[in-house]
């Protein structure tokens, strides 16, 4: 392969001339292979991990006109308020004082229960992240909508009353 045959030109040399020892031209390639594979490993790891995915979010147009607002049936609505410290406050219908507390692990069950007991056309989930909720909380809940195949949901700010209620609960529960 890589060796070259060096032919001594003169055929037989004189009696006093020493024969030059032929040195092998082979190079040990093992370290080079090692290095090659090390770099390959490095590039594989850096390329595949950075693939970002995107989640589609469509927001409704703000409207001042009351008649254009979507009407939500009280029997079909579930409001999820996202509070401080990864806590969700939820209530059915339109009475915030009846709110209950849950976490992100159990919210799926609540949504699925509601979905089972409500006609599909009436079901509407209202997501209200408050001032202390994180972006992760909002994405998690939106993701939950995709996971549970909920088609009608909206993300709005909580009303001052609701925010007051959340704060009261948080103070009572000692959430910091």
């Amino acid at each position, binding site marked *: 392969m890589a060796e070259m045959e060096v032919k001594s030109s003169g055929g037989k040399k004189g009696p006093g001339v020493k024969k030059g020892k032929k040195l092998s031209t082979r190079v040990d390639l093992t370290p080079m292979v090692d290095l090659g594979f090390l770099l390959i490993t490095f*590039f594989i790891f850096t390329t595949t991990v950075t693939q970002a995915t*995107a*989640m589609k979010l469509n927001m409704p147009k703000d409207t001042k006109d009351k008649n254009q607002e979507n009407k939500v049936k009280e029997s079909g609505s579930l409001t999820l308020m996202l509070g401080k410290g990864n806590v969700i406050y939820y209530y059915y219908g339109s009475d915030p004082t009846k709110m209950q507390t849950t976490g992100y692990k159990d919210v799926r069950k609540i949504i699925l229960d509601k979905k089972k007991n409500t006609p599909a056309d009436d079901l509407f989930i209202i997501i209200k992240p408050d001032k202390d909720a994180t*972006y992760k909380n909002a*994405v998690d809940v939106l*993701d939950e909508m995709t996971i549970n195949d909920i088609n009608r949901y909206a993300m709005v700010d909580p009303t001052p009353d609701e925010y007051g209620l959340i704060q009261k609960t948080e103070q009572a529960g000692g959430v910091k």
Partner: protein
Amino acid sequence: MARAKIKRGSTHVDMTAMCDVAFLLLTFFILAANFKPTEAVEITTPTSVSNTHAPMKDAFTVSVDKDNRIFLNMTDEIKGDVFDELVQEKNMKVTPEDKKYFMATGFIGVPFNQLLQFIRIPSDQLKNIKLPGIPADSTNNELSEWIRAAKTAGMGKKLNFLIKADDNTKYPAFGKVIDAFKKNDEYKYNLITSAEDVPPGTPLYEDNLKAQHK
């Protein structure tokens, strides 16, 4: 009696072929790698079950870090036009050199009045400077002006509006970004997330299973 000599075979293996393969693969991976553009700050995105890839063409990315600062990224196709549009709108005095610097910056993270100094900072020094971020308050909403400039400049193209926020970004900061987009009548966004598996037993999981068997 003389013992029969066993000829010892050489244990050397020819590494040339293996070396060839290794470097061929290495070349492939280097060429296939798309290097990450300079990130404004480190942002850990939340996970979602969404499996669509983030659009990378004509992308206008708003990033929000964990300190609720807002940064802006644009792809090169629209960047120059946006700058021209903005200069015209704000009546800024710029030189062609300014534009060259602007094209070279990876992201924007300062208000308009500091923009021309900001783009002259070499990118390796940006890490050491505490950047103020782009203001998006109701009194001084510069983010909204950037979006308007991008919309005017990208007329006829389909701009992709991406929002990239950190796990620990407070929701109001994200809300401000949404409000700035809404002001410009943009209601469709892509939230950048990392992939996550669909939990088994959920409606989406079963839908996916059905789709696979079809």
